[in-house]
């Protein structure tokens, strides 16, 4: 919403403030001013001049020498403007003045200084201006020529300030109005706020029901069939229309509002829409068949041509304005081509109605057409405003001599909207705000806002245009706004102490971040929604349950249309981005949810499972990733040995380089090298490793309950064991034997050599472990260790393992 500051000041006569003061004060009282623009910021010393004579320039074909009367004297100006003529009245910038830009519409910040000078040897004491040089445009000044000087009307007073004459001495204020303040989408509403903000008197225009002695009811009959969508329909009739330009003062205000002046009838409609926030529509009454208006829903698939010439297909949720035979307009959105006002119009039907905001909003979305009118209606207007607006418009028609207003009003308004009564509870407002404001002060704020007070009932009378005021909290806000948010004290809540803490889950996630970062992984974030094509990229079979995803019904496009069921796409996409940008040795992790539906179609919330996803390429391999997983598990207190099951069956991972991570018999995640086919779908040619840990499983097993187990007092004894093992036997199988057969004395073991190749028979590999034995309470003797070793060796030999001496 924009307003002219001059217009506001006209409605609040006592208001005197700079635009900046206005902006600051209005923002603090709740009408947020986004910014303002002084239209004359770069204009200086510009007066109205009259071209007294035009002579040819002796040395230039395209230049002429003009003597220009600027009131107290006549000055000489050399110009190349094509439309200069004797007797023309033009804006003239004098020596030392400034204009806003060039005549091509280019804007120079700070303006362009104009100085006396010589043009091809001839003295020129100033410059005559085009509308662009004045910082305006032909859009707002439709009469301005495409190329040339802006010609002022005949009656423009010579020597006066041209900027003021053109209404460019105004400031355009831009507001951000919140959706609850429908009344502030109008100049009057904002002027009322300004008056209350600055403590000045608000003087709205006096509106009278004008008109001749005829009766509008004789011209038109109105029926509302769908009252749920149209609470009020007011119609008036104007005859003997004389289409002409509107007066300068009206054009100035419209321009400042950003509305292009067209003709008196259109301008009056727009003017009142700005002033009252009430959109109106004018029909050519002669096109209205049956002299009646029927407000009803459209038929399904009804076709209608709007006044922009477009054919629209409607359905039965859209409200139409119809005459006795046909639709003549889409209610609240746009009129029809068949009933529009033309230059030859004789009699006009003026409509000011109140339509259901939601319906207008949905209809305008459905039709794909949002107009100035619909954007006002969709906020839900006050039906009581309609009558004032239409009477104001008719009054202006009379004042401007644009036609003859027929007396009387056709007003269909069955359920009159009453104002609200709210109990006046000053102590409650103070209690909510933490203030100590006197009730008289509060009442003075209310009065400034046109809220009445019934002292007998101790009730606040809320007018219907303040539909947002419904309860004590709303009134407290009105008090706060005008008391000043900045004057409300600053305290901290007292009361019962509470424990500030992170949940156990969040603490585990923090540890995951620490572990990952310690291992060189940086945190990434990716979207939760992705394309269903991801499942193919990840080589999931058609019947994979992971393809059962929560689908977004109105996505931003297919690429964002399903909620991810596994976290790898984001990770692989990010790694691919890095690889394409030639970043080396990239390691990323992400903590994010996957969304697993309980059923398809979705009828309840899906299960959201936090996934700890790690991905890397460059230095490192499968075992590096495995190391990260183990660091993390240790960090969250999961210190028993995790098992790695190579039969993980993840199609997106290398079949020979993947494993499920099994802790206490439970699969808590998986890791592996990305399948080269999957990697290539992400344009990655290097080996890529990923690990995914299912955090709910971690949260249920993690613990911070560590116990110190002492530092060994007695020395350890080590034995190395070297063996030839069939390739099919995994190191994990060998280690299981150690775990099982090593007994209490086997403290730890470590693989220190693995070899396959020339010296080893085919199908076998060589493994060498160092086993460390220790007792808590004594020095070990050879016999102890030998007994344990014998058991291990025996069990190994049963597995076709051959010991190397």
């Amino acid at each position, binding site marked *: 919403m924009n307003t002219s500051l001059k217009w506001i000041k006209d409605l609040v006569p006592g208001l005197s403030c700079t635009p900046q003061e206005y902006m600051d004060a209005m923002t603090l009282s709740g009408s947020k001013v986004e910014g303002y623009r002084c239209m004359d910021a770069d204009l200086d010393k510009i007066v109205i001049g009259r071209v007294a004579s035009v002579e040819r320039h002796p040395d230039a074909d395209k230049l002429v020498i003009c003597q220009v009367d600027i009131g107290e004297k006549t000055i000489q100006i050399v110009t190349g403007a094509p439309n200069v003529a004797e007797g023309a009245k033009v804006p003239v910038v004098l020596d030392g003045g400034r204009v806003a830009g060039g005549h091509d519409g280019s804007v120079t910040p700070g303006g362009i200084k104009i100085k006396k000078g010589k043009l091809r040897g001839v003295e020129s004491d100033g410059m005559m201006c085009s509308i662009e040089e004045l910082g305006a445009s032909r859009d707002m000044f439709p009469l301005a020529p495409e190329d040339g000087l802006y010609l002022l009307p005949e009656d423009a007073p010579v020597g006066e300030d041209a900027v003021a004459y053109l209404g460019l001495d105004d400031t355009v204020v831009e507001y951000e109005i919140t959706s609850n303040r429908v009344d502030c989408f109008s100049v009057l509403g904002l002027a009322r706020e300004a008056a209350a903000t600055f403590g000045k008197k608000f003087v709205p225009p006096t509106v009278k029901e004008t008109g001749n002695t005829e009766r509008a009811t004789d011209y038109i009959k109105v029926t509302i069939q769908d009252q749920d969508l149209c609470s009020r329909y007011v119609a008036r009739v104007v005859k003997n229309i004389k289409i002409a330009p509107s007066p300068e003062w009206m054009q100035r205000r419209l321009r400042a509002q950003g509305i292009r002046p067209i003709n008196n009838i259109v301008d009056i409609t727009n003017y009142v829409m700005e002033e009252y926030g009430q959109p109106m529509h004018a029909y050519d009454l002669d096109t209205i068949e049956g002299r009646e208006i029927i407000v009803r829903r459209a038929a399904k698939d009804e076709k209608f041509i709007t006044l922009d010439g477009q054919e629209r297909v409607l359905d039965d949720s859209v409200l139409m304005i119809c005459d006795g035979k046909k639709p003549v307009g889409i209610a609240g959105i746009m009129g029809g081509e068949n009933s529009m006002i033309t230059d030859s119009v004789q009699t006009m039907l003026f409509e000011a109605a109140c339509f259901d905001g939601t319906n207008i909003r949905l209809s305008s979305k459905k039709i794909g057409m949002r107009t100035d009118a619909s954007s006002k209606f969709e906020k839900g207007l006050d039906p009581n405003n309609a009558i004032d607006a239409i009477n104001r418009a008719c009054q202006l028609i009379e004042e401007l001599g644009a036609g003859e207003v027929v007396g009387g009003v056709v007003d269909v308004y069955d359920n009159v909207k009453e104002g609200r009564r709210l109990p006046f509870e000053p102590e409650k407002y103070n209690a909510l705000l933490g203030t100590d404001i006197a009730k008289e002060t509060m009442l003075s704020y209310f009065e400034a806002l046109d809220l009445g007070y019934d002292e007998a009932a101790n009730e606040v009378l809320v007018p219907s245009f303040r539909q947002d005021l419904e309860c004590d909290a709303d009134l407290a806000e009105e008090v706060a706004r005008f008391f000043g948010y900045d004057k409300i004290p600053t305290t901290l809540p007292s009361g019962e102490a509470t424990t500030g803490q992170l949940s156990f889950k969040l603490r585990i996630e923090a540890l995951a971040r620490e572990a990952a970062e310690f291992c060189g992984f940086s945190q990434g974030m990716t979207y939760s929604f992705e394309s269903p094509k991801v499942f193919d990229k990840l080589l999931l079979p058609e019947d994979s349950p992971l393809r059962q995803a*929560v689908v977004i019904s109105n996505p*931003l496009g297919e690429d964002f249309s399903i909620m991810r069921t596994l976290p790898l796409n984001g990770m692989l996409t990010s790694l691919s981005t890095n690889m394409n940008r030639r970043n080396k040795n990239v390691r990323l992790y992400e903590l994010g949810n996957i969304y697993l539906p309980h059923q398809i179609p979705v009828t309840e919330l899906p299960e959201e499972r936090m996934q700890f996803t790690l991905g890397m390429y460059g230095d490192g391999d499968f075992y590096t990733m495995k190391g990260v997983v183990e660091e993390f598990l240790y960090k969250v207190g999961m210190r028993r040995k995790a098992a790695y099951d190579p039969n993980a069956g993840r199609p997106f991972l290398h079949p020979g380089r993947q494993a499920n991570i099994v802790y206490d018999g439970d699969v808590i995640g998986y890791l592996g090298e990305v399948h080269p086919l999957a990697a290539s779908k992400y344009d990655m040619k290097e080996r890529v490793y990923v690990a995914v840990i299912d955090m709910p499983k971690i949260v249920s097993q993690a613990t911070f309950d560590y116990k110190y187990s002492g530092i060994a007092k007695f020395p350890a004894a080590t034995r190395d064991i070297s063996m030839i093992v069939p390739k099919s036997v995994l190191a994990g199988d060998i280690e299981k034997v150690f775990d099982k057969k090593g007994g209490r004395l086997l403290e730890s073991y470590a693989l220190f050599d693995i070899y396959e190749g020339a010296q080893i028979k085919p199908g076998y590999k060589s493994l060498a472990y160092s086993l460390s034995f220790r007792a808590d309470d004594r020095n070990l003797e050879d016999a102890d260790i030998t007994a344990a070793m014998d058991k291990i060796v025996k069990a190994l030999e049963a597995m076709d393992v051959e010991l190397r001496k």
Partner: protein
Amino acid sequence: MTLMHVTHLSAKREFIWLFELGWYRGIIRPLWRMVPFFYAQGRTDEIVAHATCAPRSEYGENLPYSIAQGCVRKLAALLHAPRAASMGKIFPARFGNGVITHITRMFVFYIVEVKMKEKLQKIKDEAVRQISESKDLAKLNDVRVAVLGKKGELTAVLKSMKDVSPKERPIIGQLVNETRESIEKVLEETKAKLEAAELEVRLRHEVIDVTLPAKKNSLGHRHPNTIALEEMERIFTGMGYEVVEGPEVEYDYYNFEALNIPANHPAKDEQDTFYINDKIVLRTQTSPVQVREMEKGRLPIRMIAPGRVFRSDEVDATHSPSFHQVEGLVIDKNITFADLKGTLAEFAKQLFGADTKVKFRPHHFPFTEPSAEMDVTCFKCGGKGCRFCKGEGWIEILGCGMVHPRVLRMSGIDPQKYSGFAFGVGLERIALLKYEIDDMRLLYENDQRFLDQF
């Protein structure tokens, strides 16, 4: 004249003095008389030989105790053997041949002691010379082995002690030990000096160029969103707030209706909601967590709820269809708008610096009344106005307000008894502002070169 000579001359003189005493002339047997001569000639070996084989009883008669003692003392002084003086005291009161024998043996022993002293002095002098000539620790060690080692000279002396009578052994032993100690002392001093010198040389050779590049441990980096979030969590948990979470795919009821946004409310369109179906949406705000927390009925409430939210905005430099909010909620008796102001002012100070000022502007949210937006003084220019804050000096940070009584009622809380405030902060907004990131897309691209900067 060497010390040796002096000693010899004075020894001779004293012996002569002893002989002049006359009355004990008879005591001294010819063999015994030879002692001074042997001594004078440095033939101490022979004295030892005589002494050790001297017959016990044939040396004469009684000698008055005082004389015997005097002799011993005299001799002791003569031979620079202070211990001998004290030994004089152990003479028994009765005198006899045994005593004489004893005295004799004492004399002889002193001679041995002298000889030993000389020998040790020689060893010591030689050792000191060699030590002082040692230029490095290895050489020094050679000297140590040669003198003090198992096959060293001093050890050899100690070994020869088996020839000394058991009574005298400790005295000789002590002498040897004293020598050993004094050699060791010199050795240690020299060793320390050599070590210090060697260390100095080593340090001088180990000078490095400290401006060469570092060997980096490649620690990972945290996402700027998380850094900002952890900062906020720290501030609010410090004020007694619990950090809670709620579902990202949420019922329409929690996301809208329970927050006073009924069906067809324009706010629903404003927020450009992603729908799963007409009952389930991707939450457009973290506010539904408020409702879920209030429904639990545990009062008072002080919570923040960070999390992912979704709005149907096309991706560009300032928009993302998925971003994060941090919701805050306090419900208790007597909570006021003033408390809201105080809490958020404190938050802003902790997040942006102690000089940060805040400004509350009236605003509208369906679920709070009164509502406000909070601006903070631009942390770049401190409020003077700069390009960063578009000349305004203030930057909009969050929306907040007193929880709408209708919202309280819908969640089963009596607005007559309880009141509260709520606020919502855009996490990305804070991160973008705080770290001066100019394009929101960077937050979701995960380019390592971007992440490395945090």
